[in-house]
């Protein structure tokens, strides 16, 4: 089987470019699921990671939460919640958030913990408040690692959001699930290609974000 042939056939079929099952619509849905899940996970993981990292307390709790969250199977949670509450956004968001929290939480915690203590002590010596130390000293230094945690979470969510299609939502997974049941390789390969491309775009976005947000002094070059 020639994978490239299927990719070509998928993208050159004009029927795949419009309507509710068209690539733009499915792509948009996929981006929406990804951003929503990542936003929710960041809203949980970032503050918790920053706080535990700054105070140095709760490291065991962070490790425990991360281990437990990683142990929960995404696909299993999806089906379980779908069977329990029916179809909708909830059965998809819960597994995706559970998936994205551990990398964000653990990396943020580790990033803040591993900040060189001397500038922190210096800031404290200058009379800076704890809040100021966290946001103006520790956060800028820890930012590259924090971003790498977010990026890892984002890539996993982009890839895993495809399972939404199993409980009849949209997104790029639609092509993969439909292709499985319709035995249409064009769709499967086309869908997988789109997901991989979206992962690459995600990498590029985070690279650009790092360029913009990370202080040149921290970038060390």
């Amino acid at each position, binding site marked *: *089987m*020639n*994978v*490239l042939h299927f990719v070509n056939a998928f993208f050159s079929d004009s029927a795949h470019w419009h309507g*509710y*099952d068209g690539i733009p619509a499915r792509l948009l849905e996929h981006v929406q699921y990804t951003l929503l899940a990542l936003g929710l996970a960041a809203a949980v993981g970032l503050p918790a990671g920053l706080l535990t990292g700054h105070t140095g307390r709760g490291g065991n709790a962070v490790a425990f939460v991360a281990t437990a969250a990683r142990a929960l199977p995404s696909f299993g949670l999806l089906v379980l919640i*779908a*069977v329990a509450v*029916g*179809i*909708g956004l909830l059965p998809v968001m819960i597994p995706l958030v559970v998936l994205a929290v551990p990398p964000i939480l653990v990396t943020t915690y580790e990033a803040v913990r591993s900040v060189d203590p001397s500038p922190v002590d210096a800031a404290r010596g200058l009379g800076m408040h704890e809040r100021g130390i966290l946001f103006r000293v520790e956060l800028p230094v820890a930012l590259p690692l924090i971003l790498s945690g977010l990026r890892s979470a984002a890539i996993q969510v982009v890839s895993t959001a495809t399972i939404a*299609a199993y*409980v*009849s939502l949209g997104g790029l997974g*639609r092509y993969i*699930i*439909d292709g*499985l*049941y*319709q*035995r*249409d390789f064009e769709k499967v390969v086309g869908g997988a290609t789109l997901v991989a491309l979206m992962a690459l775009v995600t990498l590029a976005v985070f690279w650009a974000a790092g360029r913009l947000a990370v202080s040149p002094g921290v970038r060390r070059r």
Partner: protein
Amino acid sequence: MTFTAKNSRSRTRHTGVAALALAAAAALLAGCSSDSDDTSDNPLAGDKAEAGTVVVGSNNFAESTLLADIYGEALKAKGLKVTYQHNIGSRETTYGLLKNGSVTVLPEYNGSLLAYLDPKAEQKSVEEVNEAAKAKLDKKLTLLESSPAENKDSVSVNAETAKKYRLTAESTLADLKDVAPDLVIGGPPEFQTRQHGLKGLESLYGLKFKSFKALDAGGPLTQSALTKNDVQAANIFTTDPTIIKEKFVVLKDPDTFFGHANVTPLVAKDGLNKEGVAALNALSAKLDTETLLDLDAQVQLDKKDPLDVAKAWLESAGLL
């Protein structure tokens, strides 16, 4: 001196291992992308059935599992060696597995199978359907005798939609024409591309639905989506016990658009001996729609295990 010599030697060894690993990786990649045009003849290679063993397969819905269990247990009773391959997927997948010999017996629905093999085929009588399907089947495969038990595909609407658009038990598929653009229709993913699905509904009746929502093969997703009005119409089986419970309205199919759907064993010719064929034919003769409805309800409503239900029925029908 010795040190350098040693160093360089083990470096060569390292490079050797590396080259080997690279070569292996390259071979793997090449294997994945090589053109092999014979894939259409052999879509699912790999797990051929062991000689002498009958592999009974089933699709991914409860009734198919139940029927496969009935077939398998009946064959076992005749002393055949039986293994099961359940929940495989849709017809699009199972047909390939029968063709390449990894599955020997599969419960099928004659008219639905014919529509898959030949989307344009007319479906008048059961006999004609079976003859037409046999003619179109792969040379290695055949259909045994059909049972009177029928489980048709249908388009059904929920009670709310029926009320809103004044659809009754007398309404037909054609009556949906003006209503369809307001309705979201649900069904298994394969419904989207099947002749007995959106394709045929559009070309024959001009039905253009607002959108299609991919659910499951008449399973709980479809039932709950229809009940909760996530979809207003759905492809469900006429033997579905929830139709009565939830007051779904099954649209009439006077032109037999969905064709006949008699439960019929699809078998690989050289995989099943005469005794096996006789056993399945005897079984089909005793299986009628009422019985099937009752067995389905035992599995889906009473949550009994399909294998127990299968054995109990075979016993009561004197087939064990």
